[in-house]
């Protein structure tokens, strides 16, 4: 952060770039999920592997029940007050929410997990076992949810055990907690050429097929691409040279080896 400080950058953290348009002056307008609008002559995408989004289990018709009983994240536990809730997963999120919701929030909590062993903190695992032994939660191990159904939103799920038995469990909510995986997200809709979940670039300057948009680091791809931090720095360096020429076509760029003497004077 200190290194970037002399350049007085603006930050809008905790937001996701959603949409790119151009205004009448040919400037990009980038809008985030919170509605922040940035106006700039160029855009550099340094998005790493993409946005980390919840892993969705491969259950038929799952999408039909999203936000109609199926949630991948618990935003407000009060939402589950006096409801029947099924949680899937074996990590700390699954264990912690099972414990929390079982302690006077939800009317019924069922935890479904693929194995008998849990990978969460030992004390959480013990608490879950104690809750199950006391009959305060229903614990289904060696099992996974294979079906969701309901007329008006989620009404029941089907759980299949390793032994092949299928149990129907009536529920108001199912919260699958299987961690996160990187996805390109809205970048995929920006009319950029995409190969294998990465943005194609020209290695001359790491520009994409959309003039003015660059992509650097793990998010891009080109023949011989190596996902190394070293290469990311190199790509960024060449990208900004090209961006400078694009923004200031009539100015010369002075290559300086260091910023210890300040950041002025790059323009010749």
């Amino acid at each position, binding site marked *: 952060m200190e290194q970037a400080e002399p350049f007085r950058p603006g930050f809008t953290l905790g937001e996701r770039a959603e949409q790119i348009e151009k205004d009448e002056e040919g400037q990009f307008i980038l809008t985030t999920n919170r509605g922040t609008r940035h106006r700039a002559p160029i855009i550099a995408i340094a998005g790493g592997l993409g946005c980390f989004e919840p892993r*969705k289990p491969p259950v038929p018709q799952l999408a039909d029940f999203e936000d109609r009983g199926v949630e991948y994240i618990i935003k407000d536990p009060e939402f589950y007050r006096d409801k029947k809730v099924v949680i899937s997963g074996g990590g700390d999120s699954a264990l912690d929410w099972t414990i929390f919701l079982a302690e006077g929030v939800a009317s019924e909590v069922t935890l479904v*997990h693929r*194995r008998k062993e849990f*990978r969460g903190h030992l004390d959480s695992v013990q608490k879950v076992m104690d809750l199950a032994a006391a009959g305060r939660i229903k614990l289904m191990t060696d099992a996974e949810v294979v079906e969701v159904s309901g007329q008006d939103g989620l009404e029941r799920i089907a759980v299949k055990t390793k032994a092949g038995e299928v149990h129907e469990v009536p529920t108001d909510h199912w919260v699958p907690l299987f961690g996160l*995986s*990187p996805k390109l997200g809205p970048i995929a809709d920006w009319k950029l050429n995409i190969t294998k979940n990465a943005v194609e670039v020209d290695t001359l300057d790491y520009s994409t097929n959309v003039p003015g948009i660059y992509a650097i680091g793990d998010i891009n791809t080109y023949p011989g691409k190596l996902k190394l931090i070293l290469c990311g720095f190199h790509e960024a360096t060449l990208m900004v040279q090209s961006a400078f020429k694009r923004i200031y076509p009539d100015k010369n760029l002075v290559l300086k080896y260091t910023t210890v003497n300040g950041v002025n004077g790059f323009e010749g």
Partner: protein
Amino acid sequence: MEDNMIRVSVTDREGNVHELDAPTDMGMNMMELCKSAELPVEGTCGGMAMCASCHMYVNSSHAIPPKSDDEEDMLDEAFFVEDHSRLGCQIHLSNELDGLKVELAPVGN
């Protein structure tokens, strides 16, 4: 087969079988071997058993060292997991694995 070279077979998600020759003296694992053969294996975490993007099924009876807790934990977050599921990055290529048969697991959403 030369010393320190084995042949393994990888069935991709379309059912095509790829016979791959693999060195056993270069510290390679199945994830890396598949990637070097340009098979559709992500290996997002770089082989640290921290994602499950190299999930595969072992379809032969080779004696592969048992799963570590880390590998089991990551398989918990994967889908289409079977008893013979492994993370490719945790299958280290050794001479004993000559003739190994694996199949790439389906990719979830």
